[in-house]
């Protein structure tokens, strides 16, 4: 690779479970810009079983679109020479189901939960959490470990100087299960021990016979402190050394890249952490995919990630239906589709996942389903992104079995920015649809910016940031992030039609005042490169960040949608009466110009 500081061109790929996406970035007039994007089916599975074929196919599309030669002799040309090739190549991967980790700890809400956070932060899917208080018997735990075949197991347990015997018991359970690795029958399963330092030797004795054991620093050295870095780092290291090295074609791909291949979610997390740190803000990011929904958050500098493994918009859409219930999906639709037909249509999307909505009603139903997937995934995120449990008082393991829940770190009033990505958000025909889906799914409070990832290149930019932060940052702000605008959502409840707040907006073009009532939504035009001085003065029952009834003033940014004033109250409750509900949904959609015409009108017309 050429000197990082002097990179003239960068190729980055993301090998997803279905599609491999390639982007070409070039230095143009001193700025890094996205030039073109190509994609091709991922080729990890049979009949190809070689990830590099999909990578080369995607890069070939980039070649065709850019007119630049990038491949020679079945490999990527580096460094750039006479307009051919690139100076650097980086990649992320979630192909073949991503990085699948099983977590073992002592108490579910304490060391096991810390271990879960470490695994998720490293970009893993946590297949199961085995803990003393998981309600299972030993033989059930052993059976579970045997049937799951994870890529690796993370064993935690005990603060330093604390419980040893129970930790060793759990290690013995792992040894008894003798779990086999998912990929490659010949090698021993990697196991990381990140628990009580006093238990290291007996854990070694129990596990070294049957697994590839690595010992790292305790991820919960005291009740009051989590130290996830060493375990996260080791998970990613083992991901490269063992999992990737066993996956078809990856050894060759690893030889091509100028930085370690990162698990896709870890790369997205890296980028979101960097954005939060650079701007000094609290950020929530969501990637709603076909099979899973990832949620990332940074609040007051603390990063958290969760993955809802069975909430998605195609492969897992039926699970959204099962978890949310049909009524919860239908409540977002300003029409009355036949429930039987709707259930069948959602299932047909699951079995033919690449199809797209063709009618307006179909689109509204898909977007209604997305709202529920976002809501459920965010609920799961809030439950895991918490303060450390077990900190407030001295206690032992027995106390923790009845432990009360800890406060979530997710503070919607303190949230500054929501970034959405994934097909249903990034490819919504109107950007206002993406904005309303995120507002309905997440229910932001106070004043919050909204943005979407234009073509889902956050993974590639995340791994790029590890070798050239400038390039990643410039492309992120100029070509990746599409600002939708800012939403103003007073928190509180009131009677529909009663006063909610007064908004005063000053821009270069003038001053505008608006008195908004409870139950209303308004869209105030404010373009992508525009800002406004805004004062929001809520009535007594409502809060926009300074306390009930207290006004807030400041500068807000516009976007392709504008300023959204959401006076529906928080928590958001839809009218119970069916007619009132459909009328309200239609009114809100009209206020934000969300659909070309109401689905019920379309249905009536047909």
């Amino acid at each position, binding site marked *: 690779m050429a000197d990082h500081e002097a990179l003239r061109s960068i190729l980055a790929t993301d090998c997803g479970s279905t599609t491999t996406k390639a982007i070409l970035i070039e230095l143009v007039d001193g700025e890094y810009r996205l030039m073109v994007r190509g994609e091709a089916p991922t080729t990890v599975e049979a009949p190809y079983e070689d990830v590099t074929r999909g990578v080369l196919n995607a890069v070939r599309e980039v070649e065709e679109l850019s007119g630049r030669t990038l491949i020679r002799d079945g490999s990527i040309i580096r460094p750039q020479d006479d307009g051919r090739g690139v100076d650097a190549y980086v990649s992320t991967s979630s192909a073949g189901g991503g990085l699948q980790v099983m977590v073992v700890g002592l108490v579910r809400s304490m060391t096991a939960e810390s271990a879960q956070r470490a695994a998720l932060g490293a970009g893993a899917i946590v297949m199961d959490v085995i803990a003393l208080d998981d309600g299972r018997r*030993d033989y059930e735990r052993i059976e579970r470990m045997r049937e799951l075949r994870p890529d690796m197991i993370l064993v935690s347990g005990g603060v330093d100087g604390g419980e040893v015997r129970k930790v060793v018991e759990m290690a013995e359970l792992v040894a008894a299960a003798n779990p086999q690795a998912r990929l490659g029958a010949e090698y021993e399963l990697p196991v990381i021990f990140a628990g009580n330092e006093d238990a290291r030797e007996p854990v070694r004795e129990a596990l070294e016979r049957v697994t590839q054991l690595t010992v790292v620093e305790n991820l919960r050295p005291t009740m009051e402190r989590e130290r996830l870095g060493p375990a996260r780092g080791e998970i990613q290291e083992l991901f490269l050394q063992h999992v990737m090295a066993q996956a078809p074609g990856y050894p060759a791909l690893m030889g091509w890249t100028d930085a370690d291949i990162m698990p896709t979610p870890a790369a997205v997390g890296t980028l979101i952490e960097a954005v939060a740190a650079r701007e000094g803000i609290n950020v929530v990011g969501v990637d709603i995919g076909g099979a899973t929904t990832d949620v990332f958050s940074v609040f007051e500098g603390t990063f958290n990630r969760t993955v809802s493994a069975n909430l998605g918009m195609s492969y897992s859409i039926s699970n959204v239906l099962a978890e949310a219930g049909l009524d919860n999906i239908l409540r977002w639709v300003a029409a009355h589709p036949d429930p039987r037909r709707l*259930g069948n249509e959602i299932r047909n999307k699951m079995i033919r996942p690449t199809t797209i*909505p063709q009618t307006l009603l179909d689109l509204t139903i898909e977007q209604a389903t997305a709202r529920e997937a976002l809501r459920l995934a965010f609920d799961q995120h809030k439950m895991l992104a918490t303060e450390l449990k077990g900190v407030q008082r001295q206690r032992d393991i027995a106390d923790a079995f009845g432990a009360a829940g800890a406060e979530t770190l997710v503070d919607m009033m303190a949230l500054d920015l929501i970034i959405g990505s994934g097909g249903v958000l990034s490819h919504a*025909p109107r950007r206002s649809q993406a904005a309303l889906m995120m507002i309905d799914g997440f229910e932001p409070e106070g004043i919050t910016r909204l943005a979407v990832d234009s073509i889902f290149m956050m993974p590639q930019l995340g791994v790029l940031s590890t070798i050239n932060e400038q390039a990643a940052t410039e492309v992120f702000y100029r070509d990746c992030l599409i600002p939708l605008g800012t939403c103003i959502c007073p928190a509180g409840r009131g009677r529909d039609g009663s006063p909610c707040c007064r908004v005063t907006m000053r821009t270069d073009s003038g001053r505008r005042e608006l008195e908004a009532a409870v139950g209303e939504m308004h869209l105030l035009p404010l373009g992508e490169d525009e800002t406004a001085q805004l004062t929001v003065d809520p009535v007594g029952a409502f809060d926009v960040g300074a306390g009930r009834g207290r006004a807030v003033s400041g500068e807000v940014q516009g976007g392709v949608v504008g300023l959204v004033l959401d006076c529906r109250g928080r928590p958001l409750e839809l009218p119970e009466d069916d007619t009132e509900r459909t009328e309200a949904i239609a009114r809100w959609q009209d206020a934000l110009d969300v659909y070309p015409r109401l689905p019920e009108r379309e249905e009536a017309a047909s």
Partner: protein
Amino acid sequence: MSAAETHGYTPGLRVTERAVIRRLRRLPLPGEVHVKAGDEVRAEQLVARTELPGNAVTVNVAHELSMTPQDAIDFIIVEEGEEVQPRQIIAESRSFWGLFHSIARAPIPGTIETISDITGQLLIRGEPIRVEIDAYIDGTVVQVQGDEAVVVETRGALAQGILGVGGEAHGQLRILCEAPDQVCHQGLVGEDCADCILVGSGRVTLDALQAAREVGAAGVVSGAIDDVELDEFLGEPLGVAITGQESLGLSLVLTEGFGDTPMRRRTFELLAEREGERASINGATQIRAGVIRPEVIVPEPQATWEAEGEQASVGLSVGSQVRLIRQPYFGMLAEVIELPEELEEIPTEARVRVARVRLQDPGEVTWEHVAEPREVITVPRANLEIIEG
């Protein structure tokens, strides 16, 4: 690639009269293979067998004897590697001249695998679990892969489905319906359906599935089902389309999906022509990466004909026969007459690649969203699948 040809389409399901079909029969762990290359096999014939390590059960001896792990170790009276019977005493302590007597017993038959002096735990490995693999299809063993797997090959008809549940099954094909769009209901299932693979056509009802299970049918193949009825048949909502492990007492293969969709005429006729012949079905489905589709195989092990070529590699082009796979035209068949190169706006306002297709049978349009059935319609290319040979 020419403007009139593209690979941006959904590969269709394979339905063919003449295919050479090979199926890998693999053990989860190495074991014994009971056949050799060249052997003719029947679907139900055992081809390989192995034993998986038995389930492990832990006994906390220290807890049972109410003492520390370090003390408990001295009272364990069995050794690692020793076989034990259920209820056999494995640790025993006496104190105060035998006044207090504590014992720990083996909860299951098995072998003592480990004894830990740190935790006072003892691990008993249960009896090995036997796993047997049958041939699945009538055919010939063409390859033996060490002591782990064999490949069975046959010639015959193959129809892939879109979704199935339940595992592998085999039996005689029995056709229940007279036309591809007939609802397959309980009244069509009689006592003589026992051990058969039953072929419906349109939507299969829950009561038909329950009746088939009651009479001991091996499996059901039909066009579609209502989603709530499938959930009821499964006993839980189907969340993710990864299936095949369900124990339902009956395997089900759906060729089209959910709702009132008729079975594709070609599939129906192909199966109807083979009524009375032996067939194998597999309900296993995995829609995500490494797509696995359920299938119906009607072997002709003695046949020598040339197989019909797979057409999956042929791209979508003008003249391609396609099926529309999204509302409002779901299930209809059409012929591609134009593949515009430029993106076009569809009623959702999305700008996508489209195809103009001529509906083959517009008279059958019954879907309520189709305002004006027209002979030529524009659809997103993502919403059609090519009909494979």
